[in-house]
């Protein structure tokens, strides 16, 4: 077990190192530098002012030196300061991380938790009209873009529940009710494709499992259908389900950018989007590293869960 853990940690370090170099170089290849954007198209652009600003934000140094300085500081936990606001990058990321974590958690809760019984039921009623209807519904859920669903939900609620505050973000600790009110619609918008995807996955994995010999044995022993499905078949059907949940969590952690944009939620997605538009190099670098680390960690957790769910993996 500890060997798996160690090798995973080494993987994590290698991935982060690679990503840090790629991100560092790539954002500097995007045309338009931070200083030019800072000055905009309406103000002074004397060469001296450009040079002063460049040296102030450290962009006048050779790129290798810039990387080494940044990476060295990052290893000590100092991600630098945002070029625009002058705030520590770590603080900005922490502020934006929380709404995204909450959104991720709620969307998964709605999507993944509902997907299991729904998928099982679809498998049990295979070929019947309920199954067909739900499969059509699942395809619709997969094809409807979350941002569109988000806008429709906002419009519906503003028309039929005008007092419902659906926009922006308030921390749960400040106003629990206000927080849930604001998070429910974006979570539903994000959860629908997750639900559609996972329920189809559970259905096919269940169908697979239900055809296995050990299920036939369980039935022959006279166990109830409910026990056969949930106790024996489901456990094996959960492996592909867990892999998908892992990937989706990574995607959600990266910031469900468009949904955050639609609902005006100050999450990681919007932080990255704004930082790229502003060429806010320290912020882009650190945010992408955090998201990458999150992605790798989630996959690491999923691998662990495999071991818990399926004893064969332990071997």
């Amino acid at each position, binding site marked *: 077990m500890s060997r798996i853990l160690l090798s995973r940690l080494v993987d994590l370090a290698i991935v982060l190192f690679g990503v840090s170099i790629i991100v560092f170089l790539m954002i500097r290849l995007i045309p*338009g530098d931070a200083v030019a954007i800072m000055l905009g198209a309406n103000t002074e652009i004397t060469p001296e002012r450009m040079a002063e600003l460049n040296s102030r934000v450290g962009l006048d140094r050779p790129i290798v030196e810039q990387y080494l300085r940044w990476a060295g500081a990052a290893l000590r936990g100092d991600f630098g300061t945002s070029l625009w606001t*002058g705030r520590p990058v770590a603080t900005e990321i922490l502020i934006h991380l929380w709404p995204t974590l909450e959104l991720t958690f709620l969307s998964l809760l709605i999507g993944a938790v509902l997907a299991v019984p729904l998928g099982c039921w679809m498998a049990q009623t295979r070929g019947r009209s309920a199954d067909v209807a739900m499969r059509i519904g699942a395809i619709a859920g997969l094809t409807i873009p979350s941002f569109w669903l988000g806008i429709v939900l906002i419009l519906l609620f*503003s028309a039929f529940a005008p007092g419902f505050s659906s*926009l*922006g973000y308030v921390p749960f600790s400040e106003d629990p009710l206000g927080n849930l009110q604001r998070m429910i619609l974006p979570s539903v918008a994000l959860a629908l494709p997750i639900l559609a995807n996972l329920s189809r996955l559970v259905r096919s994995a269940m169908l697979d499992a239900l055809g296995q010999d050990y299920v036939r044995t369980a039935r022959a022993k006279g166990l109830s259908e409910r026990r056969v499905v949930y106790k024996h078949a489901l456990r094996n059907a959960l492996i592909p389900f867990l892999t998908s949940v892992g990937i989706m969590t990574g995607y959600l952690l990266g910031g469900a950018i468009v949904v955050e*944009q639609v*609902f005006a939620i100050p999450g990681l997605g919007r932080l990255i989007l704004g930082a790229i538009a502003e060429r806010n190099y320290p912020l882009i670098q650190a945010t992408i590293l955090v998201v990458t680390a999150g992605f790798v960690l989630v996959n690491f957790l999923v691998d662990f869960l495999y071991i818990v769910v399926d004893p064969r993996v332990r071997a």
Partner: protein
Amino acid sequence: MFRSVLRGAIGAGFMMAAMASASAQVLEIGMDNGPTGLDPHLITAFPSFMVVNGNIYEGLTAIDKDLRVVPGLAESWNVSSDGKTYTFKLRSGVKFHDGSDMTAEDVVSTIRRVQSKDIASPLASRLSAIEAAKAVDPLTVELTLKEPSAPLLSSLATIAIVPSEVETNKDILQKAPVGTGPFKFQEWQPNGFILLAKNDAYWQKGTPKLAGLKFNIVPESATRQVGLVNGQYALLPNIDAATALQLKGKPNVKLGETLDLAYMLIGMNVSKPPFDNPKVREAVNYAINRQEIVDAALFGAGVPGGPLSPALKSWALDVKEFSCYKPDPAKAQALLKEAGVAMPVAVTMNVLPRQDVKDIAQVVQEQLNKAGFKVELKNQEQGQFIQDWRNSNFDLFASINAGSPDPDEYFYRTFRTGGSTNVFKYSNPEIDQLLDKARTLQDQAARKTAYDQVQKILACTGPVAHLTYGTLFSAMRDKLQGYEVMPNRSLVTLKNASY
């Protein structure tokens, strides 16, 4: 028993709601972009300007809604007969948000700060005429100029007075601004909101009436609109015509409007063919039908305009004065033939990524193509657009620019040879001489004559085809009283607003 408790609870609820609405409220504002910093001497973006200007910070002078210079933190001033010494009398009893008194020393240190190379303020050129600043006594400031400067008073309105302690500090005001304005900084959650609280010690008695301002950053236009309609936001300031049109007539929503100081433009690079030829630039102006642009791209909300906004009533010439503003594609083709360029004239137009600019660029493309051009549109990302703009890497570009209450502020840097935003590489000795002269004239009539001439020269053969000045709208809940839309997009009138 249960019923009476319930009745009592409902009654108390209503009373509390009534009390809440009777007391001053924090005004919820919906903005498309957040500020990118709050140091008034470093910011360049509109969202930052809207948050800080007049709300957190104030200048020695101020601009009123007719774009005239009026007293700000200075209650009066004297100008010496040679126009080189300005003496400002400051208001007494003005306090910074940190509780300290605002004195002449703060004004002097502010001017040094803006001029300092170390701070690298983009506003430095606005104070380039000032040679020395001196505190005569705690409430009197004397500015000595290198030469008379007619736009100085207007420029001073854009220079926020900050406490002298921050003179050499480049970071602190970006995060935690300290000014003298009616609202003081309370909290900033990037991409979320910025919250300002009422300044109880504000020098203008009886204001502000609101308990505070909360600028919510809501990037999606549809979301902002829904937020206003369902009452979550009370004000969407400075919106475009398309959004205003969608909100018009919605229950409990009203629109405020004014003529915009900002203008749509087509920039031409005169450092390379074909736009190095004045005849080709004149042909562009003849090819453009400005009214058609207003109708098609601005939904009729705007006016065709020349080098100065019609909002600047005391400066702008009527467009009838410009012969080339009468659309005439045949004349444009004749001019191109005279210029000896191969037709159709193939050129590329860089387009700023804003919906209204994109719409206008398409209309202009069609109009120019009818008159002998072959225009290819290049839709760019903001950073790329600015980089090409700064490096003069364009044939044509379509954009929107902020105007200015004083003609010098805009003309000098844009059209003078070597001007700091003269990305067109335009050089005209006659314009140079007129602009040099006009900025030192003390006599308003003589200045006006000089700028009239500048406008006439620029209108037809200048490096910019000025297109339109749009109507600037703000949408608000009808309960919001006392807020007026300013042509320069400042939200300074919020200090008089109540909700």
